[in-house]
C-alpha cells in the first residue's frame, strides 16, 4: 500500500483478512493435481477415440489395397 493506514483502516484491513484461507492447505493442492490428471486423462481419451477409427480404417484400406494388388498381378501373370 502506498499510504500509512489510520486506526479505522487498520480495523478494516483486519476484518477483511479475518476469513482468508489457511496459509498451508495440502487438500487444495491435491484437488488441483487431481483435476489436472482428470483433464489429462480426458484429453488422452479423446486422442485415442479419434485415432482408433482412423487406424481401423487404415487397416481395412491397406488390406483392400493388398487384395486389389494381388488380383491385378494375378490377372497380368495369367
Amino acid at each position: 500500500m502506498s499510504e500509512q493506514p489510520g486506526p479505522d483502516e487498520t480495523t478494516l484491513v483486519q476484518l477483511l483478512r479475518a476469513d482468508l484461507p489457511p496459509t498451508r492447505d495440502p487438500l487444495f493442492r491435491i484437488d488441483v493435481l487431481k483435476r489436472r490428471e482428470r483433464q489429462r486423462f480426458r484429453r488422452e481419451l479423446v486422442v485415442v477415440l479419434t485415432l482408433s477409427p482412423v487406424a481401423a480404417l487404415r487397416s481395412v484400406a491397406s488390406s483392400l489395397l493388398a487384395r486389389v494388388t494381388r488380383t491385378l498381378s494375378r490377372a497380368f501373370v495369367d
Partner: protein
Amino acid sequence: MADDDSALIDEIRDGSERAFNVLIDRHQQAVRGFLRRLLADASEADDLAQETFMAAWARPESYRGEASVRSWLCAIAWRKARDAQRAWFRRRAREARWASDVEQIASAPSPESAVVTRALATLPLEQRAALVLCLIHEFSHAEAAGILGAPLGTVKSHVARGKARLLAALGGPV
C-alpha cells in the same frame, strides 16, 4: 521469494511436478483469498483458483518476468473471475440471486466482518478487486493496475472510493 518464484516458473516450463507443488503451496492463500472476496460463492472461488493454477501449469511461458509471480497468478484469476461473472450475469436474474449470495457470504466470523463483507459485495467488481488487492494482499496501486489491466488513476480512485464506502458501512469516517 521473487527470484525463487521465477526459478520455479523455469522449472515448471521443464515439467517439474515439485516446482508446481511449491507454487501452489506458496500462492494458494493469495489467489483463493482474492477470488473469495470477488465472488459470492466460496466454492466457486476455489474452483476458479484451481483453474488458475492449471492455467499456470499449462502455459508457464505466459509469465514474462515483468511482474511478480503472485501478480501474474492474480491476473489470471482476475480474468477468470471477470469472465465467470459475465457468464453468471448472462445466465441469471441478477438481483434476486445476488442478494441471496450476499447473505451467504455474510456468514463471517464476527458481526463487523459481516458488515464489511456485505458492503464489499455491493461494490462494482473492478472496484472490489482493486480494494482487495491493495488492502488485503498489499499490492501497490501500480501492481494492482497491472493485474487488472486498468489505468493507475482508475485503480487509485477505486481503492479510495471503496475504502470510504466500507468505512462508512462500519460507521467510521468517509
